[in-house]
């Protein structure tokens, strides 16, 4: 049974979908890395809109804050600080061989999605159609994320923080080692 969606919903879905796809295409075809990065931000924004339409407002907000915000800013900083923004440097990465390889990988991923879409899922993975609405009525959106995060995945969550601590410590140890041992 296909659920019924209002016309506005369908219109908005296609609108953001087209924006996301078009921005993604522009992103990979731009010559300048800065312009490409800005198109990627555009893609992130429209993906965030799609998340909100799927009743995942929290994920949508996170998408904007983390991906479109923090990560892209860091990315642009790196590009500008290291002065990588010369189009000529990128030309080497845009040869026919690379394009062909990228196209093949894209086709591979596409066929994978099609194969998986045809595979029968285990029954326990299939949730009832109105599962999201049911959950939303019980909890608010943040609760839906927080509940599994701090109950089922508590240990994984805490371990991730230790992992980040190790990564930061390691980066500091190596970075300082370079300063002390530089010749």
């Amino acid at each position, binding site marked *: 049974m296909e659920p019924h969606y209002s016309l506005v919903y369908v219109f908005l879905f296609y609108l953001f979908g087209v924006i996301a796809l078009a921005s993604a295409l522009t992103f990979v075809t731009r010559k300048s890395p800065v312009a490409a990065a800005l198109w990627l931000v555009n893609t992130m924004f429209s993906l965030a809109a799609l998340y909100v339409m799927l009743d995942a407002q929290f994920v949508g907000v996170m998408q904007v804050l983390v991906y479109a915000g923090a990560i892209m800013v860091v990315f642009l900083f790196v590009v500008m600080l290291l002065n990588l923004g010369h189009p000529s440097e990128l030309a080497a990465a845009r040869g026919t061989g690379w394009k062909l390889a990228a196209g093949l990988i894209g086709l591979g991923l596409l066929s994978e999605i099609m194969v998986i879409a045809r595979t029968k899922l285990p029954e326990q993975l299939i949730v009832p159609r109105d599962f999201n609405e049911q959950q939303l009525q019980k909890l608010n959106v943040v609760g839906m994320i927080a509940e599994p995060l701090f109950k089922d995945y508590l*240990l994984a969550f805490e371990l991730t923080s230790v992992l980040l601590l190790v990564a930061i410590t390691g980066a500091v140890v190596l970075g300082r080692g370079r300063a002390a041992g530089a010749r």
Partner: protein
Amino acid sequence: MQFDLSMPAQLTSALGPDLLLMGGAMILLLWSGWRRESDEHQRSVGVLSMVLCVLTMVAVGYYAYRGYTATNGVIAVDNFRWAADEIFLIATLGTIAMSLDYNRREGITPGESHVLLLLSTSGMMILAAARDLIIVFLGIELMSIAIYVLVGLNRRRERSAEGAIKYFLLGAFSTAFLLYGIALVYGATGATNFVAIRSNIISYSLEHSGLLLVGIALLLVGFGFKVAAAPFHMWAPDVYEGAPTPITAYMAAAVKAASFAVLFRLWLEAFPTLISTWHEAVWWLAALTMIVGNLVALAQRNIKRLLAYSSIAHAGYILVALVVGTNLGSSAFMFYLFAYTVATLGAFAVIVALGRAGEDNMGVEEYAGLWSVRPGLAVAMAVFMLALLGFPIFGGIGFFAKWYILEAALKAPFPQTRLAVILVVMSVVSAGYYLYVVMVMFMKPRSSTAILPERAGGWTRAVVWASAAIILIFGLFPDALVSLTQRSTPAVSKEVAQRSR
């Protein structure tokens, strides 16, 4: 007492020793950042780290002694975990002791290096406990990221930097395999918990699901990289050669042990019903690893590279225990792991003791006539080589370790006669390089230009003698160790064995 892992408080108690180590390591991290970087401070952090290791060993022993169990959850509470933990902690203790002297000689001053070692060990302890694919992934990353940094600790040397980059890139590459495998296994079974995976495979009859089989194959490739099994071993010699020697010892002993521990638990708890499927793949992996490791080791003239290939060969022997696929195999595995860890630590401690600043004397020929100048170290090295070879009496527990693997292979439900033959033949081949080292030390004359090695630091000598003593004493009285390892099997596989009986 049984822990109910769905309750956060009881989950915390079930993780007691792991949290003790992590928390202590974080306090030590603060302490090491408190003072200006110096050799004295590095040593004080190192000694405190060793104290923390001993405390954690006591905690693990206490948990094992109380015989705690747990409901099915993200982690397991069983003797397999405690036995593996003790082995990791022994390896860490030895590594830190060696590092104290090594860091002084090489001018490595950050005290954080010891803390990173402790945090890496906590990742291994998580791995030994993990009963959920997500925890497996996080444990592997926690362990590996700290090691990537430690390999590159001695950045002034080109080879150390090269080793670090190689290890990092290939480590990330293998993690991708592992992660993809985890995703496919989850996709096929709808579960990340080992026990749930097994029951879902049975109840949805997924034995021939392509998604699941590809997932298992990718997991095997990922773990193959981590334990350096042929044909995924190419990174090991370069990385082992480039890394600071104590870290090489740690990688050869503890990192390998942890990857094997989680591989055993995953295979015995999640995929026991698929044994007919993965059996063939693991069989070839074991055979190939034994053959490649031993044959290539014959050609090595650098002692660190020689031990790297020897460790690849030992990964093959341990895989034989996995092919067996029963509790007999897993207790033989635990015994082997103990013997191998102690012998490897000892051998690398001798290398640290004989090394010079800059580590330019790693050729086996440098050890010519060692008997005439440093008889103690020469005898100890001979013991370690014979233990790795599996020689009776003088090789101590090394002999029994190989014996139990052979016994497990022959007593298995499907006797692995051909694999046992390969194991024995390859052990004979390995005599070619282990005995070569012994021969060089005792029978070749010392060249007149050779420099007398400096007297090694006290901590390094302590590691050498403690390892040699453990090997020889347990070699004479192996029974206590055998009964311990016989009880150290994954809890769930025991139930499976009983039910199928």
